[in-house]
């Protein structure tokens, strides 16, 4: 455990050293080196814990009432450390080149990036409620400063502001959560809280608080409002870390909370399943309507969090229905999807960053044809697109497959609720998967394929090796997890065991089944790769297989096609966004072609976030109106403030002294 803490210290110190170096060009490299060293050190105990060995917990006395500096690593924490340890160093390295053109001093972004990584690691190891909250806040604040790095733009400041409010609404719920839990258990140490006996009503209240508190960080619909604003506003490697990894701390928190709440009720499982379905379907529906590449990716995080919630919900229902197969497959799929999503989503954000770096635009409809000028970025983005659409042979398929199987394996003849769950899980995942594939066909197709749609796209060029290699590494991991699926699921099993609260023997047959089934998908994936390669090889060796004539695209006899006649992203997605227009409420502005000598026409669409427009804006406006009268008390006249203090003190005195004889 000391090594783990040492890793976090290295992260923070290297970040601080980078601040001291100021504008020097060495600073980003020093911070990245620190990230590699810190994560490398922290990886040692994490791997030990994942291998099933015990990592000595660490306990230091702390003068804070109720708090103790206790750290520990179990299977659950260790598994959630994996994405952090994987993505932070790669993203930090990527940042070295990404930030090279930046004119601003880089101190803040370098320091807070490393601080964010360190705080996430510490969060996983924290074993005390108060410590957890403190680290949670450090994490929130560091990420806030990362979001507002480009704070000279008004929209970035606004995004930071939204994020700050959203995260603190979550923290408020968590404060209440830990306060209530600590009162029931008599201590805030996780050992005590896990052993606390809770009445079902109390446990349900705590569960609701945990869903709100952790869900606002994870991005459950409708608490996701900060994601589509903050992720596009932050620099791309920061978005990769935040969207790929940081939002998963919400999932970790929720799972950790579940270990403390005793036997789960079926209602909790249903809650998560419904949240998952709504987040998944609406996340991808909103993603389809976006033109901003990074905003699209941010909505896909909402979708994937939905998939994770579906898995966890199915696992919880498995626990309350006593179905070990559902427990293993649901929790296993959900938790594995955390790692998978971290890998492909950070890869997608890095890819989007490369596109922005090279073309200076995030608007999908201004891009096109980048595959020819940016081969590396194109291939890695393609891999990640297939992976996030849940397609074999990549990693996204493995975890979605497990969740599907959880849905199927729960059905029992004559029990209606199991069938309803199966309909929701399999039907929901199917529609989410289909829409995600459509959305990434749109994103990849419009950005990388066809002809350039603007000068931005024509001037695109491939980036340097420092940005390419992190992406290539992540793409290789996407494929690796897809092919070595049984191995991947083995690392998840200890975490499943902790969340399920039963020992592995009870889950043994189901775990063996999951591993056996995944070796089936692994073989299919491998033979798919080999067969595709074989067919391509045969195709090249055909008598005239290498003979190529190059000509224009067939445009039905039309002689002068231009790049502007290509199908755009908006038109590609239009049939699907039309299906969801009841919630998307896309606004269209258009100048129609009019008269005999038309001057030109324009068309634009914009899809504002429904939860923001219809829920939070009216809500906060109402709150503002209700509390407005109280503002009259705050007017800046110091002598009246003194009067308030005096009145309060007198009242307190009367209250405390009045009861005594």
């Amino acid at each position, binding site marked *: 455990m000391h090594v783990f803490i040492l890793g976090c210290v290295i992260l923070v110190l290297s970040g601080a050293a980078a601040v001291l170096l100021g504008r020097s060009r060495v600073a980003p490299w020093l911070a990245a080196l620190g990230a590699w060293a810190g994560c490398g050190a922290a990886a040692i105990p994490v791997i030990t814990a994942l291998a099933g060995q015990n990592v000595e917990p660490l306990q230091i006395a702390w003068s804070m009432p109720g708090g103790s500096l206790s750290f520990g690593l179990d299977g659950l924490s260790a598994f959630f450390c994996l994405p952090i340890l994987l993505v932070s160093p790669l993203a930090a390295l990527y940042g070295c080149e990404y930030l090279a053109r930046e004119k601003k001093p880089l101190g803040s972004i370098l320091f807070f990036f490393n601080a964010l990584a360190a705080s996430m690691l510490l969060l996983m190891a924290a074993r005390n409620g108060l410590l957890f909250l403190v680290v949670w806040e450090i994490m929130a604040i560091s990420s806030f400063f990362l979001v507002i790095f480009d704070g000279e733009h008004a929209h970035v400041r606004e995004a930071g502001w939204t994020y700050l409010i959203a995260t603190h609404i979550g923290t408020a719920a968590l404060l209440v959560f830990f306060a209530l839990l600590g009162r029931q258990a008599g201590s805030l140490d996780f050992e005590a809280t896990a052993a606390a006996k809770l009445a079902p009503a109390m446990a349900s209240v705590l569960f609701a608080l945990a869903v709100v508190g952790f869900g606002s960080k994870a991005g459950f619909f409708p608490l996701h409002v900060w994601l589509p604003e903050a992720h596009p506003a932050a620099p791309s490697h920061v978005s990769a870390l935040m969207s790929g990894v940081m939002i998963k701390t919400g999932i970790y928190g929720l799972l950790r909370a579940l270990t403390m709440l005793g036997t789960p009720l079926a209602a909790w499982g249903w809650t998560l399943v419904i949240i998952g379905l709504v987040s998944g379907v609406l996340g991808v529906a909103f993603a389809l309507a976006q033109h901003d590449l990074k905003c699209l990716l941010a909505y896909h995080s909402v979708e994937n969090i939905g998939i994770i919630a579906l898995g966890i919900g199915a696992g919880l229902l498995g626990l309350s229905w006593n179905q070990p197969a559902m427990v293993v497959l649901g929790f296993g799929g959900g938790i594995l999807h955390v790692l998978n999503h971290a890998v492909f989503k950070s890869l997608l954000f890095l890819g989007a960053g490369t596109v922005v770096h090279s073309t200076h635009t995030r608007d999908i409809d201004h891009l096109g*044809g980048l*595959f020819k000028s940016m*081969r590396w970025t*194109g291939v890695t983005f*393609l891999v990640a697109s297939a992976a996030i*659409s*849940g*397609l*074999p042979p990549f990693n996204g398929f493995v975890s979605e497959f497990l969740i*599907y199987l959880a849905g*199927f*394996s729960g*059905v029992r003849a*004559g029990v*209606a609720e199991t*069938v309803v769950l199966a309909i929701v899980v*399999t039907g929901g995942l*199917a*529609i989410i998967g*289909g829409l995600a*594939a*459509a959305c990434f*066909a*749109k994103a*990849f*197709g419009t950005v990388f*394929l*066809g*002809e350039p749609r603007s000068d931005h796209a024509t001037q695109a060029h491939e980036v340097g090796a420092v940005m390419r290699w992190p992406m290539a590494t992540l793409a290789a991991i996407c494929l690796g997890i897809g092919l070595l699926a049984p191995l991947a699921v083995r690392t998840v099993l200890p975490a499943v065991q902790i969340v399920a609260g039963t020992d592995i023997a009870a889950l043994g047959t189901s775990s063996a089944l999951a591993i*056996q*089934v995944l070796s*089936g*998908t692994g073989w*299919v994936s491998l033979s*798919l790769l080999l*067969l*595709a*390669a*074989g*067919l391509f090889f045969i*195709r090249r060796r*055909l008598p*005239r*297989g290498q*003979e*190529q*004539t190059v*000509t*224009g*695209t*067939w*445009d*039905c006899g039309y002689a002068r*096609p231009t790049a502007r006649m*290509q*199908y755009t992203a908006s*038109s590609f997605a239009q*049939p*699907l966004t039309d*299906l969801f227009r009841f919630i998307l409420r896309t606004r269209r502005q258009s100048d129609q072609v009019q008269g005999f000598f038309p001057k030109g026409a324009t068309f634009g669409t914009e899809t504002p976030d429904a939860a923001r427009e219809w829920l939070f804006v009216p809500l906060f406006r109402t709150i503002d109106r209700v509390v407005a009268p109280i503002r009259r008390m705050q007017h800046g006249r110091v002598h009246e403030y003194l009067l308030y203090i005096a009145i309060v003190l007198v009242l307190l005195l009367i209250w405390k002294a009045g009861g005594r004889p």
Partner: protein
Amino acid sequence: MTVLHWVLPLTAWALAPLMLGIINRVKAVFAGRRGQPLLQLYYDLFKLVQKGSVYSRSTSLVIRIAPSAALACTAICVTLVPWGGLRAPVAFAGDIIVLAYLLGLARFATVLAALDTGSAFEGMGASREVQFAALAEPSFFLGMLVLVLRAGTVGLSDVMSGLSTATGPTSSILLVLVACSWFVLLLTENSRIPIDDPNTHLELTMIHEVMVLDYSGPDFAYILYGASLKLWVFAALVVNLIVPLRSVPPWGQIPLFLLGMGVVTVLVGVVESILARLRLQQVPKVLIGSATLSVIALIVELME
């Protein structure tokens, strides 16, 4: 796994192109024409693999790889499909999910290749293809859910050999409902009338055919062969449901299965001959209707 199991995919790989010949012959008979030879697709494939290729200036590596990737997906799908009591050579719990996602990958590859050409028509076809696929997939899984519930197992081979018409009258009703639902999917996924018209001459109205406008030579051969394999996979699933394969001894199952495939193929031809193509806006309703059939089957199953 024995050699006998590999007879199934080998037959499929060999006979799949024949199905399109049968469909065209049925349509010709209905129209009072003599029609093309039954083996026309074999001749076409043989001709195409001997040709060179023409590529558009706009295209990249994607369109060159897509045919191989798509064909690999459908070829593997064939190995996952059982014939009644005969197990597929590749069978494990949840293989139906793999099958659906392999078809999804094949679609992803062809859609991207269509966008690679930069043609407005192919973009339009790609857009419609992904829309209908997104609606078709839930229907496919809902149908599978009925079978899983009925058979009590999750693997496709186990389900198909576990289904039995002997357990009561509702069983056959359920199977027919699911078979109807999957038959609509067959028409959708293989771009047949009334969803799509493979013979249309107007690019604006096509879905699948417009996406393959820019293929030539061996690439086009791969695409055509892959499409016939896909038709085989869906037809085989329907045959598994409606033909009482399990009540005959194993040696009789293969001829009976092939007979069933012939019947389904003729049925596709008949549907194509007597129906008109639907307007595009109507297609989602058909797909949602097909999903409803499976949901009805689920309700019937639960009420029993």
